[in-house]
């Protein structure tokens, strides 16, 4: 036996008879305690690290690994480029480079209503469709509006891209009640929530038509979902739909339909977008059945106007019902309406006695626009239009009656831009006679390009 063979045999015998190597008694238990705190890596990551035993050590395996790693790096690079390219800018687009969607038409000729878009700096004004009540999704990708002559009985609900292209018919709509037609587009532009009007039998046996079913329909077509069906016992009317920014919940104002067809007590309800978890968040009466309810951008608060014995009060209500506080107290000369949050959640703007006001939510006091206050001589009134995407500016609709009040024509209207604190100069965005840009359920939109 050679010395090398003896050495090998000696090692084998020593190693195989090595009874002295008793591990510490808790070694395995200690290791398992660490294992309990550790998470397994996905197989693909392990593979990328080359920890596979089989295949990775041969030349072919190495080539395969190199090819795999190369392909993975290429994919990651391409994905990163796509993400960087598609990622929205860190700062929200300013108003000047964002599109305002509004309705224009001759009020003496209802059939001529049309939908227009103009950039916040007043340039690029152009018509995108014929109809009214356009609603543009928060992300600016989609729009829905009502087509047809407003004096026709039947109209159509049209879906389109945010710029008005690719218009397609979603549904027929009863235009006889179009002014009360209630709908809201989802923030991501994928669906529209709308209220269906169904026959209701009154106590006297009369058949009334009321908006008593809430549907969500996809803009891409296909069947809608009935998320709040008609109550089997009591008759309710649903108005003032508002989607939470996350697109997961819808706030509604529910009113009891009385025996004579009028609307009785009102309350605010919230329902998940899939129809689950319908619950009441406030039993107090909003100022009117159609008064808008506004979600805060973070989805935690609802702003609405409450009708109290002392007058109208602008309220902010926690969605879980835990907190409710007035932010603009009722006063003899105050009548808040139509609250809307700035996109960053820092301001709440509302209409007040024909003028506009804002309040800083971090604890400010209501500020009324000095130049856009209550109706002045000449019958000038101001309305909230929309917030710019960067929350710096507020679009204001100025309406001035230039003719006799008894005549329908004669509204001269302008779109103005003011700063959120209502302290800076006013900028004229568009002057167009006439502009009819405001329906209570369909405010203007100012969206990122």
């Amino acid at each position, binding site marked *: 036996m050679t010395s090398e063979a003896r050495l090998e045999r000696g090692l084998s015998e*020593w*190693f195989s008879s090595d009874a002295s190597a008793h591990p510490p008694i808790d070694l395995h238990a200690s290791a398992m305690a660490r*294992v309990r705190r*550790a998470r397994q890596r996905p197989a693909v990551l392990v593979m990328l690290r080359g920890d596979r*035993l089989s295949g*990775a*050590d041969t030349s072919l395996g190495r080539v395969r690994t190199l090819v795999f790693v190369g392909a993975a790096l290429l994919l990651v690079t391409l994905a990163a480029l796509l993400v960087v390219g598609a990622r929205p800018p860190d700062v929200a687009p300013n108003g000047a480079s964002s599109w305002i969607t509004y309705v224009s038409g001759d009020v003496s000729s209802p059939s001529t209503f049309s939908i227009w878009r103009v950039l916040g700096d007043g340039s690029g004004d152009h018509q995108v469709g014929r109809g009214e009540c356009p609603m543009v999704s928060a992300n600016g990708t989609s729009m829905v509006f009502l087509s047809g002559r407003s004096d026709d009985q039947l109209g159509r609900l049209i879906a389109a891209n945010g710029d008005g292209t690719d218009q397609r018919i979603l549904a027929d709509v009863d235009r006889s009640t179009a002014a009360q037609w209630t709908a809201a587009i989802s923030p991501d532009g994928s669906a529209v929530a709308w209220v269906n009007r169904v026959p209701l039998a009154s106590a006297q046996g009369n058949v009334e038509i009321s908006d008593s079913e809430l549907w969500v329909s996809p803009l891409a077509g296909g069947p809608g979902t009935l998320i709040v069906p008609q109550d089997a016992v009591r008759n309710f009317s649903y108005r003032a739909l508002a989607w939470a920014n996350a697109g997961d919940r819808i706030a509604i104002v529910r009113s009891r339909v009385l025996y004579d067809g009028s609307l009785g007590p009102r309350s605010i309800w919230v329902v998940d977008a899939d129809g689950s978890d319908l619950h009441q968040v406030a039993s107090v009466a909003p100022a009117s059945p159609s008064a808008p309810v506004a979600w805060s951008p973070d989805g935690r608060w609802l702003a609405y106007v409450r009708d109290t014995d002392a007058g109208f009060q602008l309220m902010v209500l926690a969605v879980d019902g835990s907190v409710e506080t007035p932010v603009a107290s009722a006063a003899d000369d105050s009548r808040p309406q139509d609250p809307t949050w700035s996109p960053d959640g820092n301001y709440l703007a509302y209409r007040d006695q024909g003028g506009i006001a804002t309040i800083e939510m971090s604890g400010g006091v209501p500020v009324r626009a000095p130049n856009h206050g209550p109706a002045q001589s000449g019958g000038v009134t101001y309305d909230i239009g929309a917030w710019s995407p960067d929350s710096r500016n507020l679009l204001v609709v100025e309406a001035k009656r230039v003719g006799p009040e008894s005549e329908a024509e004669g509204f001269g209207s302008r779109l103005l831009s003011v700063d959120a604190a209502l302290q800076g100069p006013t900028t004229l965005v568009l002057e167009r006679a006439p502009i009819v840009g405001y329906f209570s359920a369909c405010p203007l939109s100012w969206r990122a390009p």
Partner: protein
Amino acid sequence: MARAQRGDREAFATLTEGPTKRLYAAARLILRDDEAAADAVQDSLVLAWVDLRGLRDPHLFDAWLQRVLVRVCHRAASRSRGRVVREVLAVGQAPDTTPDVQVEMAARDELERGLRRLSHDQRTVLVVRYYFDLPLAQCAQVLGVPLGTVQSRISRALEAMRAALEADRRPLVLSGEAVR
């Protein structure tokens, strides 16, 4: 194995309870330090759990676990490079004095000293080859090197060990005079 790969920690504990003793013995031979060996085994088991989903062939679990241990030992040795551990016979430790046992202990002691004088890579290849008792091809897999490299490392390790043993057997010479 399938359950462990799906994240069942109890299955993994059952799977690794048996091999732990052998892993510890191997780590102790490679690192020549009991505490470092225990740490290496713990680290190996945790690493094996974390990367278990990357093991394609469940039949190779033992070899794969050994490879994980070898890598962990390599890292531990790199960290402790330059640190010398000296073993001394504890006072009062009475060795067995029967002739056969004495011969065996002397031989083992000689091997241990020889093993300690090898480099980390040389010790590792000998442990993988003769303690895990693996064929050369599997040694290559566990060590993550080509087959030829395994053969040459074993050859050099045995050569270095033999030289170390022979050096041990020679009397220590100081100033040209043998010390007896």
